[in-house]
């Protein structure tokens, strides 16, 4: 029991279950899945599909935040990736060919890698605070995307490109598959190699890590590059889904959703230990919240108010002040019980 409460996944999962219950009450068919034309449909599938871009970005963001950093530029990178891909496809004589789409996607990803290296350079080499360093690209990035699209909304008509955002593979939405692949890749890459350990160690205690011989510079550049790479993939999914690159609105505010997903998932903004699984739950909570707002019949535009409520609630729950108060309260309830003490410690950490 104590273990369950002290797990950092506890509150996010509770939140997700509460949202599911609300949905089920408002819309009894919420959990039903059906197969139409060999494709999976249903509310849960919608949540997974619409939540995919946020999840992909949140995975990159988790690693950045674990190093005590933050990446504000992901929304702008989304827009740039979409703009690059669409303008290449539009400029090609055969927009429908797989080759064209492949070139477009690769070009978009390469540019994102350069942008990620740039962020990493500012943070790791010049030593600029992450929030400030990525603010630069956040500001200039959308302008650059506009430059690429020449201020137009680039609508593309390319069936292979459309697959990325709205296709199906083996009945499952392609975007969900991509998100799963990125998630698994990040999990394997950090947990099967020593990357995760070193990232956490740098995030928790940079000086101790330095003295232990950890090369933090390379690590920082890696995580910022990965974050930009993930953002570009999310940007391609979003653009493909709309079949258009809109430099102004593609990925607008998605950095905030991604950070929110990470925070809900229990990874502290102060850096250190991270949980990709938590981030997954966090991203699902956010997307389910949006869906819930729809199904319950609240005007969808009010979603942001609920997001504000969730951010506030999560922050207050994680705040040291709250923890201290709770700790005192729990101590006064169960004086001297050894179990209570460990639980309280775990919730602090």
């Amino acid at each position, binding site marked *: 029991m104590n273990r369950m409460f002290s797990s950092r996944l506890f509150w996010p999962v509770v939140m997700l279950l509460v949202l599911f219950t609300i949905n089920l009450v408002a819309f009894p068919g919420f959990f039903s899945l059906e197969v139409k034309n060999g494709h999976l449909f249903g509310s849960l599938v919608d949540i997974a599909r619409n939540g995919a871009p946020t999840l992909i970005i949140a995975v990159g963001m988790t690693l950045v935040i674990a190093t005590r950093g*933050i990446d504000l530029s992901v929304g702008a990178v989304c827009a740039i990736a979409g703009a690059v891909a669409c303008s290449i496809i539009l400029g090609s004589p055969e927009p429908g060919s797989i080759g064209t789409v492949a070139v477009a996607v690769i070009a978009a990803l390469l540019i994102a890698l350069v942008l990620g290296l740039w962020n990493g350079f500012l943070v790791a080499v*010049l*030593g*600029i*605070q992450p*929030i*400030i*360093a990525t*603010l*630069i*690209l*956040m*500001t*200039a*990035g*959308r*302008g*650059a995307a*506009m*430059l690429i699209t*020449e*201020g137009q909304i680039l609508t593309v008509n390319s069936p292979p490109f459309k697959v990325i955002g709205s296709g199906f593979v083996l009945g499952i939405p392609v975007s969900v598959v991509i998100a799963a692949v990125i998630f698994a890749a990040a999990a394997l890459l950090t947990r099967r190699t020593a990357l995760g350990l070193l990232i956490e160690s740098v995030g928790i205690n940079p000086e101790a890590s330095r003295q232990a011989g950890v090369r933090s510079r390379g690590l920082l550049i890696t995580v910022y590059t990965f974050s930009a790479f993930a953002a570009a993939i999310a940007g391609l999914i979003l653009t493909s889904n709309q079949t258009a690159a809109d*430099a102004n609105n593609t990925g*607008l505010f998605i950095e*905030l959703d991604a*950070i929110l997903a990470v*925070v809900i998932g229990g990874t502290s*903004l102060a850096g250190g230990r991270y949980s990709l699984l938590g981030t997954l739950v966090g991203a699902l909570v956010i997307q389910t919240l949006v869906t819930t707002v729809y199904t319950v019949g609240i*005007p969808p*535009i*009010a*979603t*942001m*108010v*609920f*997001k*504000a*409520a969730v*951010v*506030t609630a999560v*922050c*207050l729950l994680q*705040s*040291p*002040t*709250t923890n201290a108060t709770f700790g005192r309260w729990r101590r006064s309830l169960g004086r001297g019980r050894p179990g209570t003490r460990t639980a309280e410690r775990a919730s602090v950490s």
Partner: protein
Amino acid sequence: MSIDTSSAPVDAGRRLLGRVSSAFTSPKYGPVLVTLVLLIAIFAIGGSRYRGFVSGPVILNLFVDNAYLIVLAVGMTFVILTGGIDLSVGAVLALSTMIAASLLQSGWSASVVIPLILVLTSVLGLLVGLMIHIFKIQPFIATLAAMFLARGLCYVISKDSISITDPVFVSLAQTRISFGGRMSITASVVIALLVVLVAFLVLHYSRLGRTVYAIGGGEQSGMLMGLPVARTKVLVYVISGFCSGLAGVLFTFYTLSGYSLTAVGTELDAIAAVVIGGTLLTGGYGFVLGSVLGVLVLGTIQTIITFEGTLSSWWTRIFIGGLLLVFIVLQKVLTARRR
């Protein structure tokens, strides 16, 4: 004798040169001076390329078009001087345009609506400040929550644009204070300049203002010196909330409407103006007048792009990003040299 007379002016010249160069490399004055030079340079470029660029009406219009941004930047300056940041200003601005438009539409009087908006946005700032201070939540996240809340409330009020027909607002929007010829300013400019003046006096002649600088220089030191650090840290967010509300009111004078999607990304403009105006993002150094210069630089770039005609407006963002980079690196260099 002759040596003396000739060397004296040389010495004086060298001393002046030394003064100038030390001012430019000081973390306190350096960035502001660079901004000033930059502003003059941009004007020179504009003046050399376009006829009528350096003229009274163009310069006054800079103020007319950016009055609300000046007010926002003033509030942001207080926050950034303490080492914090406020991401909610754009959304709060939009919220106050929505509150103004919808209340005026349902027949409230302007003399009630305006004070009400200012009180509401100040209270929102107070809540943010308390979240940051009591619950030790990072300013970035706390103001992010406020941003979500304010934008969400905008949509709750209405998703459509509401136009304003209230006679007081219309007359305030249209009244121009003329300086003869085509030179005139709006009431908003006067209000914005008043805000700047008050902010300047508060920052430089009040204990609150000096505590703001002290927090940015070292919160712990300020506390050990017996300054009211906690109270001041909360107050800067109240000030920023108030300024956002006031900026919203000025913005409705400018557009005569309220719209949920208005001023998306304005927080970035405000932050950029403050940074370009020479305020250190980690706090402690900066001037409110510098922030005004920052706003003017942004405004002038926009004007040039308008004059150019062929250059598209998205270049503005790229220029702002580039300037941000230059100033952030400049700050880094100037403060690193001092350590």
